[in-house]
């Protein structure tokens, strides 16, 4: 091995002069995301059964599942049959300032009511805007 050669990086530095910059111009150009990226968690109320598994596993206590203010009407009574229980509707309160985006809730949800999205530009000037109420 030849040792003590000054200017070993010179060739590389000269070659770099004729190359495009390694940095991207975000936010002017869009950031590239991989398909498995874990971003903001979205909620689909129709699928939720209110088992609260997501609330149990959340390491940051960021999720809360509550009963919706407006409940769907009970199914009509059919003569001679027992009334099936009304399907309850649930809301999800997601505290984005607490969420650590591990997507464990998405994995544990038995009905796939929680979805991991590509949304990552979530900074807000108002702290209250970080508390999302999905209906």
């Amino acid at each position, binding site marked *: 091995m030849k040792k*003590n050669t000054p200017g070993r990086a010179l060739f590389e530095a000269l070659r770099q002069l004729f190359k495009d910059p390694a940095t991207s111009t975000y936010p002017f150009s869009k950031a590239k995301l991989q398909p498995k990226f874990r971003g903001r968690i979205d909620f689909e109320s129709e699928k939720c059964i209110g088992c609260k598994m997501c609330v149990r596993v959340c*390491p940051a206590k960021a999720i809360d599942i509550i009963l919706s203010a407006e409940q769907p009407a009970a199914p009509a009574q059919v003569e001679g049959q027992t009334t099936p229980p009304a399907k309850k509707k649930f809301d999800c309160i997601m505290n984005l300032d607490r969420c650590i985006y591990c997507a464990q809730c998405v994995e544990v949800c038995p009905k796939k009511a929680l979805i991991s999205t590509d949304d990552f530009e979530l900074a807000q000037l108002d702290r209250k805007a970080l508390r999302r109420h999905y209906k």
Partner: protein
Amino acid sequence: MSKISIPLGPQHPGLKEPINFGLVLEGEQIDKATVNLGYNHRGIEKAAEERTYIQDIYLLERVCGICSHSHTTCYITCVEEIAKAEIPERAKAIRVLVAELERIHSHLLWLGIAAYEIGFDTLFMYVWRDREQVLDCLELVGGNRVHYAINTLGGVRRDITPEIKAELLKRVDILEARTKYYTTLATEETTVLARTQKVGVLPKDLAIKLGTNGPTGRASGLARDVRKDEPYLIYDKLDFKLITADTCDVFGRVVVRVLETVESCKIIRQVLNYLPEGPISIKVPWKVPEGEAVNRYEAPRGEDIHYVKGNGTDKPERVKVRAPTLANYHAVPHMLEGGWMADVPLVIAAIDPCMSCSDRALVTDRAAARSAVWSWEEMRRNGIEFYKRRGVDFSKVVLK
């Protein structure tokens, strides 16, 4: 000449994280050095006792950003040992794959920082540009760049598809070529040699006595690597070399790390070609039986040790983390003594310190000769009183 004692840190431009070094200078030479820890204590071990085993994976991932996979793998292996769960071979292979990608990521990051401390910013910029390749690989496998969150109780969360495999192989080739270039650059460039040779010398006998591990120990000729000594996951099936250097100085630490990166590229290729078919995880009950386990793991910085004690519920009774940096700190004063003031940031950076990894609290009452475990409330009360004495009142902050 009269001696001057100066503090280096906790806030200092030469340090990346808060730590304090007390230096006694004689002219420009260091006569004596001491190390003081404890500026970054976050109560993670206590918090781990309050959370379930699943939640602890994400908590312990945040012990340190760079070794996020090391800490979770070490912890989850302990839990699986207590639960007597045998994870699938494919899951083991994926864990090794992410571990080696993480090692490349950590070593390239370190090489950049070392180049920056030397004052060779060109090398720093080029290394960090090429480090993007391995960060992209990790994003491809795990989803995110730093907290991959690939581990779960009983296996891994994400599978490797043939497309990902092809992409990884392509990027590993680029990484290997670039790393080989940096190897020649770092071992032949005059600037690097002048700043690293005979700097921060730690002889082998002292390295053994002080219990150094990881690349710091291996650069002093200490042939120790948990992957070889006590193979875990699938390391016994892989063919790789244990890299050591006998120069015992910062130069040796550079050489060990760049050559280990090349070895890691080799391991990744072997794992991708080995990757057995089958499931990626098994179901493990959330309630883990009583028992305790200790596990060793070769993190990029050295030997990581986790201790977990289960009590039959879904929460652990005790989690103890011994991060690799803590073992290497004792060697820093010995490396510094007799050296020059201008080399201090480089010598400290050469052990690849991670302050957030190593700050753990131990409360002992010597006068009463008793040791008691603090509860979460007691710890919070103590924290509020500590800050009250410094003029900040946190007592009105409500915890959820």
